[in-house]
């Protein structure tokens, strides 16, 4: 009985304390020295480096990167998530966000990316060229239709089917080999890296130096490839609009573009 009262005495401060901590954390998240960048998952490594560079040149500013599929980022913003900068892996979802009047200015293309086929180093299905993907029993993984990388992958298959040296039903046969439609590009490369899938369609930039130990790349000819354009923009209700514009400037600067190139992305200036 006394112990029960004691428990009550303990519980009340515990609840108050946890509420206070939550409040404090929320406040810290809102402070103007924090910059929130919403970035497509294929930008994970490149934006990690850009962020370090930005924090080095902007003491006191800490950058939080919210990584997700471009469609998820758009959905989060649509439902009221607050951020300062949006970097999307395709123009479709950036346009969607713009149509909701959530952008503070025009989106600027800052990088391009192309698709490659990734194959585990162990290469269990013995895939030596793109045509092998149509062989029966090959386990192919690609992004779901709604994810940019998934839509691009299907486009590439169609284009390859019209390319000399490929059977006309190439796309249909490869699609029949698909064992999983992943929700984002990182899950695609994950399944390839683990050797569970025989091949996966990913961005060139996803095959990072760390992954190259496990994954081999089959290039897709430019004529059949889809060059994805990555736009960046400052968000309308950005809590830190000035810092946000400085971040975008860094991404577009020669240093930023060099970092992007190091991570397998094509700098925006390189493409006509």
């Amino acid at each position, binding site marked *: 009985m006394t112990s029960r009262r004691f428990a009550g005495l303990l519980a009340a401060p515990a609840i108050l304390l946890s509420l206070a901590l939550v409040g404090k954390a929320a406040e810290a998240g809102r402070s103007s020295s924090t910059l929130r960048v919403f970035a497509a998952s294929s930008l994970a490594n490149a934006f990690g480096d850009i962020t370090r560079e930005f924090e080095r040149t902007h003491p006191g500013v800490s950058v939080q990167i919210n990584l997700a599929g471009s469609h998820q980022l758009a959905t989060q913003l649509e439902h009221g998530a607050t951020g300062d900068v949006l970097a999307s892996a395709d123009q479709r979802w950036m346009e969607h966000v713009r149509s909701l009047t959530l952008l503070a200015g025009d989106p600027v293309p800052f990088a391009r990316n192309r698709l490659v086929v990734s194959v585990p180093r162990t290469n269990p299905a013995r895939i030596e060229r793109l045509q092998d993907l149509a062989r029966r029993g090959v386990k192919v993984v690609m992004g779901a239709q709604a994810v940019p990388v998934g839509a691009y992958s299907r486009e590439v298959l169609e284009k390859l089917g019209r390319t000399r040296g490929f059977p006309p039903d190439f796309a249909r046969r490869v699609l029949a080999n698909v064992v*999983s439609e992943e*929700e984002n590009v990182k899950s695609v490369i994950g399944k390839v890296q683990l050797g569970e899938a025989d091949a996966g369609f990913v961005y060139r930039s996803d095959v990072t130096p760390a992954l190259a130990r496990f994954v081999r790349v089959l290039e897709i000819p430019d004529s059949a490839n889809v060059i994805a354009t990555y736009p960046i923009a400052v968000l309308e209700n950005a809590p830190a609009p000035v810092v946000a514009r400085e971040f975008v400037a860094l991404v577009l600067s020669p240093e930023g573009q060099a970092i992007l190139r190091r991570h397998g992305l094509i700098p925006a200036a390189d493409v006509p």
Partner: protein
Amino acid sequence: MTAAVRRSAPRWIPVAAITAMGVLLLVLALPFAALMARASPGALLSRLAEPSVVQALRLSLLTSFAATAIVVVLGIPTAYVLATRDFRGKRLIEVLIDLPMVLPPTVAGFALLMAFGRMGLAGQWLRVLGVTLPFTTLGVVLAQAFMAAPFFIAPVRTGFAGVDPRYLEAAATLRASEVHRFRRIMLPLALPSVVAGTSMCAARALGEFGATITFAGNLPGVTQTMPLAVYVTLQSDLDTAVVLSVLLLAMSFGLLLGLRAAPGGWWGLRPRAAHPGSSPTR
């Protein structure tokens, strides 16, 4: 003691308790209410027949039924041993069984890949036998069983342990074998717990998401269960996502409500169980 409790309980306690409950209920019920409000009955009915919805529903029912059956068959003996025996390492086994309950499902899915994936510890051997689990419906069943097993074993074990040992001792003096005592006394008396465990397990299997998408992947008709379909359609077709969500919600609600209604009189076992000495009807 009772007098002391009465004296020390001021009038504000029930008020505070009801307020706390109200706040909690609001937080719990509001999202469900919002989901229901979003779905118009007409759209609900018209989309129920959509092939993608039917496909996901059929796969979900099939896999969660199979997963529950596996867990029940393997879980009853496990719960029995844990409830009736003491041995070295028992704690460790109990923790192991509870682990999937608290583990992030993605971690569980990843661990399953490490074990049963094509390149996994056991998966390499399974492959020799011609069994593949990742990207197959069987893989979905395994992921669901893995995540749902603790929800069956915990209540059943408690149920078995709660059977009055005097009945079992009495039966033992009458030379009833252990199997006989289990079937005639323990199982009937613990049946409400078994029913509760089964519905909890089925409900958990039905809602499984993270381990499934990590281990079994996502392919309509093969591994795309209802929770996966909700997640995927959320990005392209909000109305279908709402329909799938409402359907899933109704099924889980029904399962858990059925579980509340079931133990007790329903099963007609209480009277017999209360007099284990009386001759069992065949």
